[in-house]
């Protein structure tokens, strides 16, 4: 029987000098994770970019529940992507995308208006 891992979704905001491409962000995220926690640590995270809106600067990442602190620390330590300086801010975490969006996207949409 396959045991399903518990997953968490992280909603983050990116404040950057210029627009940041999704692929470049993913590359930097993996590189930083690898630098901080090594091959074994990185293998525990099950990291996956679910959504990324480069125009509005928001994204959702999926990770294993146990690896949540590792991913949050990695987001905090990133300071530039492809030479563009940036700050990643975690807005919230949840067990489902639906709950995450319900909780935070109303506020984001309000801010955008």
């Amino acid at each position, binding site marked *: 029987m396959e045991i399903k891992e518990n997953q968490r979704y992280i909603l983050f905001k990116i404040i950057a000098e210029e627009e940041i491409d999704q692929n470049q962000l993913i590359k930097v995220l993996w590189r930083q994770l690898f630098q901080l926690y090594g091959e074994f640590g990185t293998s525990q995270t099950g990291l996956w970019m679910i959504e990324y809106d480069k125009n509005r600067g928001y994204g959702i990442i999926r990770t294993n529940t146990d690896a949540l602190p590792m991913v949050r620390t990695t*987001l905090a330590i990133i*300071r530039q992507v492809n030479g563009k300086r940036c700050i990643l801010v975690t807005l919230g975490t949840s067990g489902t995308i639906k709950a995450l969006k319900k909780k935070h996207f109303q506020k984001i949409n309000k801010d955008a208006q």
Partner: protein
Amino acid sequence: MKYYDLGIYSSLSDGQDEPEIMIEMAIELGFAGIGLADFTNHTPKIIKGFRNKYKERCPIFTRATLAPKTTDEMKKWVKNLRNQVDIIAIKSGIEDKTIYVNAIVDKRIDIISLSEIADFESLEYAHFKMARNNGKLIEIVVRNLILQSGVQRSKLLRQMIKTCTQIIRSKVPFLISSGAQSKWEMRAPRELVALASLVKIPEKRAFEAVSTHAEKLIQKIHMIRDPNYIMAGVRIVSPTEEGENGD
């Protein structure tokens, strides 16, 4: 819960960005107040102007971070600055521990700041215990954790973990601050807490460091700014206040 970053450096001191840019970023990141160094070269009028402008959105506390080479130098600087700034922090970075010991017992100094690897190496458990007994705050600056990489970061992390374990054990109150010198080096409160987890600081203690302990220092600053304040434990009581207490 309100969050504070009491260690921010703008172009007025070692930083690159203008104070306004740093303050606006602090507001965007969700801070309720910041400690901005170093206003010593500016007139009280400029400082007042800044304070009034951001009074509602993000109160500003002025700060001087001193790195004296000798104890006499420290005492001289503190004497000159105490009435000009809200917060005085000492960082030494040299092996002479007597500066830290004198800073810990000096009532005019608020914070012992640790940012470089040499700072973290300088202090031990006994110093933190002494700091706790003397009502001092220890400041853990995370800037170098963000900026360094590879072997350098690895060495810094090792020393920080060692020192932070002693800080936790000694129960001395501590702050976590970004030590940012540009707006891109600033981090949101939750990110500061996440970075603290790298050096084995429990989440609850890290949250206290960016909120409760900082708030206590701010209360002390407000108390000192009060025109009725004379010295620790002594303030002028108005007749009405006296009457109320008497009832």
